[in-house]
């Protein structure tokens, strides 16, 4: 039986895909037939290793582009590379993110600028360039990785929560603007997910957050990747402008 999640022939860019949710997403999309373009700000060597792993495990086309999603010129150059090689882009996963926690009164200007540069500006830069490539084929799916913190807030996360709430606003506005071009824009709001971003949490905070999960388990990057797969595939072809919580019932 042909898979409903068939992504054969699709070109997908996943930002921040050297680890965590981005890496799980890249593997999932490759598993279902997409050619994946990896991105991260981390070293070229790590990206190259990831690329080779994808090619080896899934026997598909893979590329790696190292750039800072918050650097406007670098993003444009990256899309020029994509244009030159593929002439198209079908799926963009705006995943690259930066976590900054601090209480009100202890937030520096540079922390705000750096967090918004990656989490918010980067989403707009990539979305804008991707939409122009997608418009040529009158088709595309853009998936922005927001956060549960952008929906309900959290102590110590004024900056991070603000940057992720902005991602939700961007998603809703872009979805309205791009729907007529058959470009869908949705967001995923992950809850408590097992990535590097949580490894510095104290046991007390860790347990507090875990207790808020109705399903009583921490989410895995693959849980988010599977939601991305759905929104990237044609199974969601009539869905746009939605914020999908992947949080084990943290908010309902």
């Amino acid at each position: 039986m042909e898979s409903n999640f068939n992504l054969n022939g699709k070109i997908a860019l996943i930002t921040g895909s050297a680890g965590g949710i981005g890496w799980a997403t890249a593997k999932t999309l490759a598993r279902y037939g997409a050619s994946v373009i990896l991105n991260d700000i981390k070293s070229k060597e790590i990206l190259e290793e990831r690329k080779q792993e994808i090619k080896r495990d899934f026997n598909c086309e893979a590329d790696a582009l190292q750039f800072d999603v918050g650097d406007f010129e670098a993003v444009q150059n990256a899309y020029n590379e994509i244009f030159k090689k593929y002439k198209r882009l079908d799926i963009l996963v705006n995943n690259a993110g930066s976590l900054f926690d601090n209480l009100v009164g202890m937030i520096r200007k540079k922390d705000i600028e750096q967090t918004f540069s990656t989490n918010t500006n980067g989403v707009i830069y990539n979305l804008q360039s991707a939409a122009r490539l997608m418009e040529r084929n009158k088709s595309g799916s853009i998936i922005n990785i927001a956060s549960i913190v952008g929906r309900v807030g959290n102590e110590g996360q004024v900056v991070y929560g603000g940057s992720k709430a902005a991602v939700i606003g961007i998603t809703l506005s872009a979805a309205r603007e791009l729907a007529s071009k058959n470009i869908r824009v949705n967001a995923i709001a992950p809850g408590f997910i097992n990535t590097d971003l949580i490894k510095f949490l104290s046991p007390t905070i860790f347990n507090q957050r875990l207790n808020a999960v109705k399903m009583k388990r921490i989410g895995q990057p693959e849980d988010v990747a599977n939601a991305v797969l759905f929104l990237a595939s044609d199974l969601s072809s009539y869905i746009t402008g939605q914020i999908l919580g992947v949080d084990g019932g943290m908010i309902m």
Partner: protein
Amino acid sequence: MDNVQKLTKTFTESLEIEPEIVTDELSYGSSSWDSIAHLALVASIEIEFDIMLSSDEVIDMSSFKKAKEILGKRGIQF
């Protein structure tokens, strides 16, 4: 078909206007050339000339004359 003819054809088809209207004086805001049509026009130009324009070039492309200048800087002769 030379490049002026190709660009003129792209403008007429994207903006759904007659070829006679496509002169150097044709500018953004006139005829059916609004913000939505502009992005469709840019996409058509990119496909026709096999290039990807920068955001600044997209914004600066405010007339037929300007379009030729921008494409000229990309090595497309008019």
